[in-house]
Each structure stands twice: as structure tokens, then as C-alpha cells.
């Protein structure tokens, strides 16, 4: 319903970004060569372009830091234990447990580190689910058009209108999820539809491009055209959406765990905060147990900050052309309708 209004400014990522779509030859090149080109298109070029902006650079390094913390960090930092120190030890009091301890003397810092994998799993599942579904639905709707398009877009519209968190409460009330991957996927349900909508309208403009038409005329199949001609142009946009989805999922997850809407099943920052609030009374008595709640909150803020910075930077890098393009389209609208 509000599909087209909902676009951020700009639209399709066009050939300005990656150079004009290389010719259809690519479909006939040997696999190794093709892999290398795919790498160039999907990984190397976006990386180099992204690296040129300080926001993307810092954001990317931040994301990398969290990924390392959740993978290697878990191996380096030993598992937290009861009575590592006195109960409710404040931070900076004892430098062997610099972050302080919770109500049974467990190190908060270790808990944050060991809570990271669950956060990453949720974010990953959310990204895969939201972006995957959004891309598939958006591309098919935009490329196929007609009845398929209308059916898919009606479905997307329904999801756009459904309020995200209440929907999640309904789902959780029916189906108490525990697995972090599943939690991530469910939290991403409200997110795929907007992306699908936006991608569709971009594909609509892209499919009219000469080189896509040429590919079609040469008899290349729809999957080939989509993966080789259309997807590369949309890659930065999808990356930005992925980062947005990851942010949304972890923010929602921590909130829902914090408030106890999601059933506890694993260690994560939201669960820590919940315990800090319920057991340690951290909100009413922050001097006593505040660190227990604020450290995971800080970790979360750092993560969302890195993700947001990353996508803001990408937006900066890729959007000047898009902005210009957008204003151009408006101009075209105005000059249209020659009698």
C-alpha cells in the first residue's frame, strides 16, 4: 500500500556503481573464471568502494570485532563460574575481575563474551531469513510481473502493515521458541516485506535496461539473468538492508529477553539484563547491580553502532549517484506528457 513511498531516497543501484553489466559472454565462461568474476563483482569491488569511507571502515572493523569475540573470543576467555569473586563486586574494584560480578559471583565480562555467539546466531538467522526471503520475493515479483507480481506484493503488503513486535508476541505466545537461530528468523518476519517491495521496484527499472534486454534476447534463462545481470547491481543495496536487518533483530531480541517475553534458553545479553533487573534490582538500585545491566547494554550499543555506521557509510558511498538519479526521475516526471 505504501510501497513506493517507503523507499529511501534513490532506487536501484545502477551501472554507475559497478560499470555497465558485462556482456552475456559471462554465461559461457568456464567455472573458475566465472567464480573469479563473481568474486570481483560481489566481494572485491564492494569491499574496495566501501573501504574508501571512514564510516564503513570503522563500522566494518567493529562488526569484525564482535564476530571474533563470538568465535575466537569464546575459546580464549574461559567459561564463567560461580564464586569467581564476591557477589555483586563493582567494576574496577578488583582488577582480576575488572568488570565486576553478578549475584553469585560470576564475572560479568566473561558472561558478555559468552553471550556473544547467541547474539551472532540470531543476527545471522535474521539476516538470512529477511534478506533471503526479501530478495527472492522481490526479484521474482519484479522480474516476472503480472499475476505473480500482484500476488507476492499483496502478501508483502500484509506483512508491511502488521505491527512487528505485537506480531512477535502473538507468535511467541503460540510457539515458545528457544533456539537462537529460530528466534532470529522469527524476529526477522516483520523485516522481509519492505525489502521485497523495494527490490521489486528496482528490478522493474533494471529489467528495462538495454543490457538485460540483450541478455533476454540471447535466450538466457531467468535465473541466469537474475544472478548475473541484475543481482550485482543490487548488491550494495542488499548489503545495507542486511545490516539493517541484523540491527533490528538483535535490538528486538535483547529487548524481548530483557522483558522476559522470550523464554530463556541460552546465554545472551538480554537474559543477563533480565537477571540484573529481576535479581539484582539494577534499575532501582544501579549502584549495587547497575554494571550487571549496563555492560551487556554497552556491548549491544557498540554492536548496533558498528552496524549502523557500516550501513550509513555504504549509503554514503553508493547513494550520491542514487540521489542524483532520483532527482533526475522527478525531472523526467515533470517533463513527461509532451502533447
Amino acid at each position, binding site marked *: 500500500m505504501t510501497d513506493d513511498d517507503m523507499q529511501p531516497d534513490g532506487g536501484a543501484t545502477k551501472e554507475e556503481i559497478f560499470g555497465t553489466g558485462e556482456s552475456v559472454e559471462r554465461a559461457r565462461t568456464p567455472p573458475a573464471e566465472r567464480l573469479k568474476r563473481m568474486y570481483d563483482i560481489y566481494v572485491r569491488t564492494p569491499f574496495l568502494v566501501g573501504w574508501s569511507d571512514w564510516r564503513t571502515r570503522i563500522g566494518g572493523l567493529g562488526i569484525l570485532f564482535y564476530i571474533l569475540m563470538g568465535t575466537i573470543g569464546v575459546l580464549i576467555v574461559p567459561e564463567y563460574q560461580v564464586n569467581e569473586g564476591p557477589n555483586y563486586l563493582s567494576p574496577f574494584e578488583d582488577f582480576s575481575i575488572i568488570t565486576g560480578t553478578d549475584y553469585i559471583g560470576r564475572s560479568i565480562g566473561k558472561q558478555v563474551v559468552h553471550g556473544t555467539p547467541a547474539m551472532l546466531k540470531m543476527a545471522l538467522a535474521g539476516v538470512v531469513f529477511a534478506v533471503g526471503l526479501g530478495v527472492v520475493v522481490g526479484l521474482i515479483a519484479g522480474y516476472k510481473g503480472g499475476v505473480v507480481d500482484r500476488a507476492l506484493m499483496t502478501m508483502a503488503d500484509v*506483512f508491511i502493515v502488521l505491527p512487528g513486535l505485537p506480531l512477535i508476541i502473538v507468535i511467541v505466545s503460540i510457539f515458545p521458541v528457544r533456539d537462537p537461530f529460530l528466534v532470529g528468523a522469527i524476529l526477522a518476519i516483520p523485516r522481509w516485506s519492505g525489502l521485497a517491495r523495494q527490490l521489486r521496484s528496482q528490478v522493474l527499472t533494471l529489467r528495462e535496461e538495454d543490457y538485460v534486454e540483450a541478455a533476454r534476447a540471447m535466450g538466457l534463462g531467468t535465473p541466469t539473468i537474475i544472478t548475473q545481470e541484475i543481482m550485482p547491481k543490487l548488491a550494495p543495496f542488499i548489503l545495507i538492508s542486511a545490516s539493517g536487518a541484523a540491527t533490528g533483530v538483535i535490538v528486538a531480541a535483547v529487548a524481548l529477553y530483557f522483558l522476559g517475553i522470550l523464554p530463556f534458553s541460552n546465554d545472551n545479553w538480554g537474559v543477563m539484563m533480565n537477571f540484573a533487573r529481576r535479581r539484582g534490582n539494577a534499575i532501582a538500585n544501579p549502584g549495587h547491580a547497575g554494571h550487571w545491566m549496563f555492560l551487556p547494554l554497552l556491548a549491544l550499543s557498540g554492536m548496533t553502532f558498528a552496524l549502523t555506521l557500516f550501513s550509513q557509510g555504504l549509503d554514503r558511498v553508493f547513494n550520491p549517484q542514487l540521489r542524483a538519479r532520483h532527482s533526475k526521475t522527478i525531472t523526467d516526471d515533470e517533463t513527461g506528457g509532451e502533447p
Partner: protein
Amino acid sequence: MRYYVQRVFQAIITFVGGLFLTYCLYRLMPGGPVQAIVADIVSRRVRQGRPVDAQEIGAQAERMTGINPEHGILEGFYEYVFNIVVYQDFGRSIGFADPVFDVLFRAMPWSLFISGYGLILGFTATVLIGTLMAWNEGTKTDSGLTVFVLTMNSIPYYVGAIFMLVVLGFEWGVLPTGGRYPQSAEPGFNPEFMIGVAKHGAMPILSTFIIGFAGGSLGMRANTVRIMGSDYLRSARLRGLSTNRILTRYLARNAILPIYTGLVIGISGVFSSGVITEQIFQYPGVGWYMFEGLQLQDYPLIMGGFVFFAGLTVIAILIADLTYGLIDPRAGDAASRESF
């Protein structure tokens, strides 16, 4: 005219579609609430040695969930929607022993109060800050505000809420930490009640304001900068129009257009994050009741809360959509909207 009819029609379709989807979830999910309740009733009856009569159990389950498991999916859905539309009957809340509609209807104004104020404040701030940045483009004010906005934007909204609650509510004790108004106050037009409402609402509104505000202002800045360099603005200046007219009719009007659609997304975001805000501040609005329903396994209440939020979102988006047609003459142009 066609545009408006189309939009209204579309809104109804998507709303009913969403309702149907959740209804199916409720009915069909193995181990879902309706099945669980039916199983519960059956086992209780068996234990008590009472006859297991499908119709009676269906009626009992309907009282508890608003959904009769004996009816077919479509028939049951029709009944459910019919009851909602005609009798405002969402079923009976198990936890609050009241019709769900009454419970939610009492809570509704409070939710609207929080979200509405927060949203309006946030939107105003978006426009003002965006314009301020554009006006001082390239200066220290601009870059300072950009960093500020970016930071606000990238930290989860409830972090601010928690900090406020800790500092203003508990440490300093300036603002109440829960409830909608002081218990001693008599609801009505008396100063104690009004001030109480304002005080209790302050923190929830402020934290809603944070959600609403940061995101759009960078976009507003970009729009304003673009329009300040546009040909029509230069032409207007040369034609000797007053600064006032240029600011309102040319600059603000055109710069807000793209932001306005951002507001649409903001509406659904703000309403649905109301669940978290209301819970953090223990503010009994619809979101709070929905949360309580979850704790009490009060399915009619959860479902009712969801319908309320979905309806509110649809209406809000519809209003924004229809008024967009009023403020942007190009909106009715189906062709241009389709491609972009």
C-alpha cells in the same frame, strides 16, 4: 478520486489479510492455543467424569479464546471478524475477567497519548534539525549535529529509556517510575490529575520521541540542501517573493515531502515499540496489557491487542497515504509511482 478509493480498499484488504494470517496461526498451529485449550478442557472433563461433548467444548473454548474450534476455518474467521466489527467482541479476557474490548478500550487513549505525542515531537525535531543542518551546511554545527544524530540513531531506543528510568526515576526521583497517573488523584479536569498525567507520561513520551526523531533528519538535511540549490528556489528569489513565503511554500513544503513518507514507517514502528516502552515504564497501555496477556496465557487479550495494533497501523498509514495525495500533486500519478 480513484486514488483514494483504491488506497482505502487496499488498506482493508491488507488488514483483513493480516488478521486471517494470525487467525490461521492460532487455529492451525499444532500445540497452538486453541488446541491446547481444547485438550485442557477435555482432560479436565474426563477427570471429572463428565461427558465429552464436542459442541459444548467448542462453545467453552470460544468463550475463552473468541474462536470456536468446531467451525471451519473460513466460517470461523468470518464469525470472528463479524463479531469484532459488529459487536466489538474480541472474546473475554481470562486474566482480567472483563471483555477484552473493554480492557483494551480503556487502555487505548493512554497508548495513543504516548505514541502520538512522541511521534509529533519527533517529527517536528526531525524537520527542525534537518533544516538547521542544511542551513549551516559544511559548518561545525552541521558536522556536530550529524555525529549527534548518527549516534542517537545507532543506539537502541530503549537504552535511553532505561537510562532515563534509572537516573530520573530512581536516582533523582524527579519522575514517577510507573503507572499512568498518581493513585491519589481523581481523574478529571483537576490540576493534580493533569500534572500527574504529564509527569507519568513524560519519560515514555521522551523515549518515544527518541525513536521518532533521529532517523529522518539526515534525509531532511539532504532534501533541504538539494532544494536550496534548485532552479525554482533561485527563480522565486529573483521574482522578489518574501523570505517567509520562500521558506514555507518553497523550501519546507518540498523538503518535507520525502520525509513525510518516512513518517509513515515511523508510525508503525512507534506503535509497535510501544510494547517495550510501556513495559519498561510500567505504563498500562495496550502494549502493557498485551504483555500481561502473554504472561497469563490470556489468548483473547493477546489477539485483541494485536488486532488493535494492526488496526491502528493500517489507519495511520492510510491517513498518511491519503494526505500525501493532498500535499504532493504528483502522488496521484500512478505511472510515476509505479516505477519509483
